[in-house]
């Protein structure tokens, strides 16, 4: 784990200790630093300027950089992403916000057909970033809780990242902005104000395409990303007491995936749980299973087990959403069965 171990799990936000940076502040810091160092970087989206964004991710940036570089747009996801594509082709570095990541569906064509395929079609790179809050746990209902990263991981030409820590949130947003290809940056809204850690004072990036081993273990590997990293760590703690030693791999970049780190881990532990909050069929877990069963077959001492949300929309009412979301208990159950296998 980079930096101090972040706090997680409290229902409300706890004020950051002196010197500690929350996940949401880390993203803002990353944006601010990149805007300061590179005048090509600009932001556009709904209510990101004057209001500072629905989750205040861009709070204060319009005051610092002006409304030419922090643009409040109409409610037009296709125009937001489309304008970002055009500007990126001109050498700019646009960062487009989706107010909730669910609305990315309204820009699906622009992202998967224009942005993703441009370099391949004629060598015209599209260095844009699309970012926004994804994920559940806050009773947002079917349209404010989705995890659509799987769609985009099935789209060649895109890069897809999702940070689990404040350190990575800052380092990955900076890397995403500097990347020469379109990067989709999925934030997890549950983490915004629930985790924090001390960040380095100096400039750093977290390279796109590199996973991190968050906890070393011998008995089985949990491959996961985003908020579920914390769920995996929580489960690992419980399981440790039971004598099951879990390794936790945080993918950080979902596409193109750091297959080597996953393979090395599972080649060592010989068993794997694939954990994500997105729905099961066709999710990132399926891809990891495919990679492992193709490239790591001889090392597998047990079935590959997915712990994911079921194949349903995200329900709104707390008891329903709780049933829907993966949690540490569900991971523990799967891990016990797998360890005993």
């Amino acid at each position, binding site marked *: 784990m980079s930096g101090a171990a972040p706090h997680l799990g409290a229902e409300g936000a706890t004020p950051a200790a002196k010197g500690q940076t929350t996940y949401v502040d880390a993203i803002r810091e990353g944006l601010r630093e990149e805007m300061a160092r590179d005048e090509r970087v600009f932001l556009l989206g709904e*209510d990101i300027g004057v209001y500072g964004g629905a989750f205040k991710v861009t709070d204060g940036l319009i005051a610092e950089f002006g409304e030419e570089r922090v643009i409040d747009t109409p409610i037009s996801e296709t125009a937001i992403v489309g304008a970002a594509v055009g500007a990126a082709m001109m050498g700019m570095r646009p960062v487009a916000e989706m107010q909730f990541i669910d609305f990315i569906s*309204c820009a699906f064509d622009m992202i998967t057909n224009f942005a993703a395929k441009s370099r391949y079609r004629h060598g015209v790179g599209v260095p844009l970033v699309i970012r926004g809050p994804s994920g559940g746990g*806050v*009773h947002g209902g079917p349209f404010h809780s989705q995890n659509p990263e799987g769609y985009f991981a099935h789209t060649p030409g895109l890069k897809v990242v999702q940070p689990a820590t404040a350190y990575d949130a800052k380092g990955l947003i900076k890397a995403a902005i500097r990347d020469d290809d379109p990067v989709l940056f999925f934030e997890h809204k549950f983490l915004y104000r629930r985790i924090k850690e001390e960040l380095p004072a100096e400039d750093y990036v977290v390279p796109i395409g590199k996973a991190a081993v968050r906890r070393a273990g011998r008995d089985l590997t949990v491959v996961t990303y985003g908020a579920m990293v914390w769920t995996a760590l929580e489960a690992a703690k419980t399981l440790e007491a039971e004598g099951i030693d879990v390794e936790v791999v945080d993918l950080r970049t979902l596409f193109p995936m750091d297959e080597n780190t996953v393979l090395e881990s599972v080649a060592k532990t010989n068993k794997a749980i694939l954990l994500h909050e997105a729905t099961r069929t066709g999710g990132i877990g399926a891809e990891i299973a495919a990679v492992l069963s193709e490239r790591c077959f001889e090392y597998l001492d047990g079935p590959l087990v997915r712990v994911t949300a079921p194949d*349903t929309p995200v329900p*709104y*009412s707390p008891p*329903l959403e*709780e*049933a829907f979301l993966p949690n540490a208990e569900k991971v523990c159950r799967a891990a016990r069965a797998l360890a005993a296998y």
Partner: protein
Amino acid sequence: MDLTRDQKLELYRYMRLNRVVEERLVNLYRQGKVVGGLYRSLGQEATSVGTAYALAKGDIVGPLIRNLGVVLVMGYTPRDVMTQYMARATSPSGGKDCNLHFGKPERGVISPISMLGALIPVMAGIALAGRMQKKNLVAMTWIGDGGTSTGAFHEGLNFAAVQKLPLVVVAENNGWAYSTPFRKQTAAPNLVSKAAAYGIPGEQVDGNDVLAVYGVARRAVDRARSGEGPTLIESLTYRMKGHAEHDAQAYVPKAELEEWRQRDPLERYTRVLLESATATADELAAVDRSISEEVDREVESAEKAPLPSPEAANQDVYAPRVAEGEPVVVRRRS
């Protein structure tokens, strides 16, 4: 098209009901009983009530989350709304979806999804089906000033115009889309000018004058029902609260807010009823009292409603499987 006294009082009743239900929701919200956000319609009651009131039995609406008055006119109860906001099992969506996201065609209401604009093509489809089924129904839907910037708004309205569908689209220009002012949403001077793009009639109305709203809506509904196609109505009104309860609307000029407070649609309509001697102050007070009591009872019963049980989370993604070999029942061509 002239309203009877009873109808005029009914308009009052719905507007008051809209306001009182919402006030109770604010209480519940402050008590932490509302799950998620609360989206206010304060100051916009005349638009919801006046437009929906122009419809007839069998017509179908597609309201947005500020159109509390619409679902009340369509016959949903205060309890329906409150159980929704409290995520209860007995709410119209059974706790699956939030706030005003509910409806069934049989009840005359189609639920929106959050994605603004998406309802417009869907309501065009409702109108299309109604025509094919010879139901002579009118479909009505609402969209914010912000929502008119979506591609779905454009595609849906254009499709409806080409097909000359019985669809009424009410564009509620309340000045703001979350924190974004009208002039950052469109360079057009108003929303009604967008009708020209589709070759359909556009009408602008003072959205805080319920009788005027009703009149314009009624004309549009009549046109739709007689086969003359869609109308775009621009209702000029104002969002008196923030985007949702958590939003203190710091970005809204205080003077503008004060100006619109003077034009409160319920106060205005009360004055109209009194000045025209349509009703006495006592009569209106009696309506208010009965509404208050009704809503009290509804709150009480809503609060007792159970939360859904976890098993429901996995149910109803698909239709129950038709047993194999079982014949599918269809209406044959006559």
